[in-house]
C-alpha cells in the first residue's frame, strides 16, 4: 500500500468582496489516505474545497493533480478529473429516486427510454463493495439522513472518483452512524482513494485521519501526521495564541461559574405532552413534557432532525400545536400569537439565522428591530420612532462590533460574519424571561462563540431562563443546569448537572433508553 502525492494546491487566494477568505493556502493530498482539514468556522476549509471542486474560482494559486497542472472551472471539470464532493447540505432532487439522483448528469445507457436497470445493478454492486446500504428505487423524500448521506457518497463513487471530499459529514449522524461512516472511509482509503474530511471536530480527526491540516483565518497553519498530533497542538493551531485556552469558556471542560446564580423555584415554562404534526400527518413532536425554572439553562440534546426545530417553533407560536399544553409564566400559551409571546418576554434565536431572521433589502437598524418593532421605544401607537431606533442601533453596533458602523447601511452589503453578529445582537437586545436558542453558535468563529456564551450567562444573572437546543454536546455540558435528550420528537431522559455523562447522553440520543 504505497501512497503517493496525488494533489497539490499552492498559493491559493480567494476574496469575497472585501473579505479575504483564503490567503496563500497550501494543501497536499496523498493516495490511500484520509486527510483531515481542520479549522474553526470561517477558517476557510469549505471555501478551499469548493475551489477544488470548481464551485468557486480562485483569485490566485495553482492546483496540480498527479504533478500536472489543472484548471478546474466547474463541478463538471472536477468530476472529470476524478474529484467528488459530499456537501454539508445534500444536493439531491427530493422527488427523484435514489438511482435517478445518482445517475443524473452521467451518460446513461438507455438515453431515449430511461430504463435504468443496468445502472441500478452497478449501483447495488458499488454499495455492497463499500458497505453503503441503499434502496435504489426509494424516493429521496422518504429517506432518513443517514441513508441520504450514503446516496451522496455513492454519487461520487459511481463517477469513479479518486478524491472524495466530505464537508462536515457527521453533523446529522448518531454516534453509531458516525462509526459506520468511518469504517466505510477506511475501506475506501485502503482501496486507494483519497478522502478529505472537512470538520471542526477535533476528536473525530484524531480518530480516523492519517494526516491533519489545520487552517485558521484563511491561512495554512500546519500539516502533521496523526501520530504527532495532540489535542492541545491542534487546538493551538485552530485558535492561535489570541485566545487564552485556560481562561476561555470555549475550552472549559468543567464547570462555568454558576455559584453566583441560583436557579429559581418557579417554573417559567411548562410543556406537557406536546404534540406537533408534520405535513404528512406524521407526528414530529409527541408526548413531549418538560419544565424550565427561572434562571435555569435547560439543554436539549439530540441528533438533528428529531423534532428540535418543530419544538422550538411551536413554543414561539410559529407552528400550530396539535395536542398538549403549554404554560409560560403561569399563563397558558394556547393559541397565542408570536407577537404576543415576544411581548410577554420570549425571545428566539433560530438555527438558520439567515433564512429565518435576516431582511436583505432592509438596513441594519430595520433588521435590529424585527420582532420588537411594536414595542417602546421603537414605536409608539403605530408610528415608528426612528430617532430611538437609530440610537439603540448605534449602541448595539458598538457593543457587537458590527462593521460598517452605520445603522443605515444596507444589511445585504455586510459580510457573513457581521450579519451573524447582527442577528445575535438582535437576539440579546431586549431583556427576556425566556430565551429559546437553537444552535446559536453554529457557524460562528471561536471568539463569537465565546461572546454568545458570556452573553447567555450575563442575561441569566438578570433573570433570564434559557432553552438551549444544540447539536453540540460539549456546549450543553459546559453551560446547562439540566440536559434532556430528544429522540423522535420525545423527551427520553433528563440529567442534572453532576450526573452528566456524555456516553449516556449519546445512547439516549440514539434511542437507547436507560432512564425512565
Amino acid at each position, binding site marked *: 500500500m504505497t501512497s503517493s502525492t496525488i494533489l497539490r494546491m499552492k498559493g491559493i487566494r480567494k476574496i469575497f468582496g472585501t473579505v479575504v477568505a483564503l490567503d496563500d493556502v497550501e494543501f497536499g493530498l496523498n493516495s490511500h489516505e484520509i486527510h483531515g482539514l481542520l479549522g474553526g468556522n470561517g477558517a476557510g476549509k469549505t471555501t478551499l474545497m469548493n475551489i477544488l471542486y470548481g464551485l468557486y474560482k480562485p483569485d490566485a494559486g495553482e492546483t496540480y493533480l498527479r504533478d500536472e497542472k489543472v484548471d478546474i472551472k466547474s463541478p463538471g471539470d472536477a468530476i472529470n478529473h476524478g474529484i467528488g464532493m459530499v456537501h454539508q447540505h445534500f444536493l439531491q432532487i427530493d422527488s427523484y429516486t435514489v438511482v435517478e439522483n445518482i445517475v443524473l448528469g452521467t451518460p446513461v445507457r438507455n438515453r431515449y427510454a430511461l430504463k435504468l436497470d443496468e445502472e441500478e445493478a452497478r449501483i447495488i454492486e458499488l454499495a455492497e463493495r463499500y458497505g453503503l446500504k441503499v434502496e435504489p428505487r426509494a424516493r429521496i423524500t422518504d429517506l432518513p439522513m443517514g441513508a441520504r448521506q450514503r446516496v451522496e457518497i455513492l454519487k461520487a463513487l459511481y463517477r469513479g472518483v479518486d478524491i472524495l471530499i466530505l464537508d462536515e459529514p457527521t453533523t446529522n449522524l448518531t454516534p453509531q452512524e458516525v462509526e459506520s461512516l468511518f469504517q466505510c472511509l477506511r475501506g475506501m482509503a485502503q482501496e486507494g482513494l483519497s478522502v478529505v474530511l472537512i470538520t471542526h471536530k477535533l476528536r473525530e480527526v484524531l480518530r480516523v485521519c492519517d494526516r491533519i491540516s489545520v487552517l485558521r483565518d484563511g491561512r495554512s497553519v500546519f500539516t502533521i501526521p496523526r501520530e504527532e498530533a495532540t489535542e492541545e497542538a491542534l487546538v493551538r493551531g485552530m485558535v492561535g495564541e489570541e485566545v487564552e485556552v485556560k481562561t476561555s469558556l470555549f475550552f472549559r471542560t468543567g464547570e462555568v461559574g454558576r455559584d453566583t446564580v441560583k436557579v429559581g423555584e418557579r417554573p417559567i415554562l411548562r410543556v406537557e405532552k406536546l404534540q406537533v404534526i408534520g405535513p404528512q400527518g406524521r407526528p414530529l413532536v409527541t408526548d413531549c413534557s418538560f419544565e424550565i425554572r427561572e434562571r435555569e439553562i435547560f439543554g436539549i440534546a439530540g441528533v438533528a432532525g428529531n423534532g428540535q426545530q418543530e419544538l422550538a417553533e411551536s413554543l414561539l407560536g410559529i407552528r400550530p400545536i396539535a395536542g398538549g399544553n403549554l404554560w409560560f409564566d403561569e399563563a397558558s400559551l394556547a393559541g397565542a400569537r408570536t407577537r404576543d409571546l415576544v411581548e410577554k418576554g420570549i425571545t428566539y434565536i433560530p438555527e438558520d439565522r439567515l433564512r429565518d431572521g435576516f431582511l436583505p433589502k432592509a*438596513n441594519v437598524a430595520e433588521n435590529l428591530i424585527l420582532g420588537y418593532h411594536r414595542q417602546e421605544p421603537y414605536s409608539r401607537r403605530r408610528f415608528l420612532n426612528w430617532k430611538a431606533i437609530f440610537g439603540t442601533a448605534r449602541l448595539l453596533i458598538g457593543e457587537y462590533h458590527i462593521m460598517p458602523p452605520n445603522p443605515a447601511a444596507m444589511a445585504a452589503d455586510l459580510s457573513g460574519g457581521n450579519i451573524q453578529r447582527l442577528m445575535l445582537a438582535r437576539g440579546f437586545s431586549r431583556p427576556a424571561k425566556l430565551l429559546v436558542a437553537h444552535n446559536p453558535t453554529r457557524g460562528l468563529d471561536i471568539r463569537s462563540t465565546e461572546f454568545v456564551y458570556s452573553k447567555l450567562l450575563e442575561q441569566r444573572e438578570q433573570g433570564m431562563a434559557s432553552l438551549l437546543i444544540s447539536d453540540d454536546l460539549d456546549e450543553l455540558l459546559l453551560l446547562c443546569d439540566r440536559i434532556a435528550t430528544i429522540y423522535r420528537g420525545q423527551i427520553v431522559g433528563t440529567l442534572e448537572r453532576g450526573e452528566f455523562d456524555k456516553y449516556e447522553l449519546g445512547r439516549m440520543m440514539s434511542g437507547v433508553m436507560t432512564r425512565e
Partner: protein
Amino acid sequence: MSELAVQPRHNVRFLVAGFVPYLLAVVAAFLAAGIFIAAMGFNVPEAYSSILFTSFRTPTAFIQTLLKFVPLMLMALGFAVPLKANKFNIGLEGQLILGAIGATAAGILLADLPAFLLLPMAILAGILFGALWAALPAWLLYRFNINEILTTVLMNFVAFSLMDYIATEVWGDPGAGHPTTIPIAPGAYMPLLVSSPPLNAGILIALLTAVVVYIYTNRTVSGYELGATGSNPRASMVYGINTRTMFLLSLIIGGALAGLAGAIEVTGVQHRLIEGMQSNYLQLGIIIGLIAKGNIRAIPLVAFFIAVLEVGASAMQRTMMIPVEIVFIVEALILIFILLADVIRRR
C-alpha cells in the same frame, strides 16, 4: 426597504451617483429610438423636441401634462405599495375601471345630494370599488396561495366587459357614437383650480395621497411590516408579523389607489364613464413604478417625466405622423437600460 439611507458626508456625490445612471439610461433610450425614427424617414431633432418640450410650450399643454400626471402617479403608487411586499399588482387597470364605475354610479344614482356630500361620496365610492376589485385576487392569494399576477390580470378582462355593459346597457348614452354613460350630476364635478384650460382639484388630492402613502410606508409600524414581509416573508413570520395579512393589505391598498385614480378621472375630467378611459395607464404605471424602483419619493418625479413624454408623443403623432408607440418603446427601453445600469453597478 427603507428610503432613509442617510449618508452623512457624501450627499452630493451620492446624489450624482444616483442620478447619472438614470440620465444615461434616458439618453440611451432616446438614441435607440432616434435610430428607429430616422429609419422610418422622419426628422429626429424635431421629433425629440416635440416629445420633450411640447408640455412646456403652451399653458394648455402644461395643464394636459398635469392631468395625465395625476392618474399616472396614482397608478404607479398602486403598483409600488404591493411591490414593497414583493407582490405584483397587474390588475391596476381593472381597479381603475371599477373606481371609475363606482364614481359614476354615485354620480348618477345619488344625483340629488348636495355637492359637498356628493363629490366625497363619489370619490369614496371609487376608492372602495377599486379596493374591492383587488380584494378578490388578494383573498385568492391569502386563502389558496394563488399567484396574484394571474388573478389580477384576469380581473382586468372581467372589468372590461363590465365597463362595456354599464356604458351600453345600464347608463348608456344613446346619442354617443362610442360606449359612454350619461353624464354624472354636476354636484359630483371636481372643483376647478384653473378654469381655462381646466385643471381640476384632483391634483391636490393626488399629491396629498402621495404624502400619505409615503408616511405609511416609511413611518408606521404597518408600513415596516409590509417592507419586512417583502424582504423575507419567512423571517417576518418567525418574528411575529402576519405576512398573509400583509399581502392582502398591500393589494387592497393598491386597488384603492387605482380606484382613486379612476374616480378622479370621472369626476374631474370626463364627468362620465367612457369606455377605454383606462388608456395605457396600467403599462405606464408599472413602468413608472419599476423605473423608480418602488421608491415612493421618486415616483411623483418619474410620473411627471412620463406624463411629459406622453403629451409630447400625441403631439408628435398629430403634427409629424410618427406613431406614438415610439415613445412607448422609449419608456420600455429606459426601464431596460436602468436594469442594465443596476447590473453594471453591482459588478
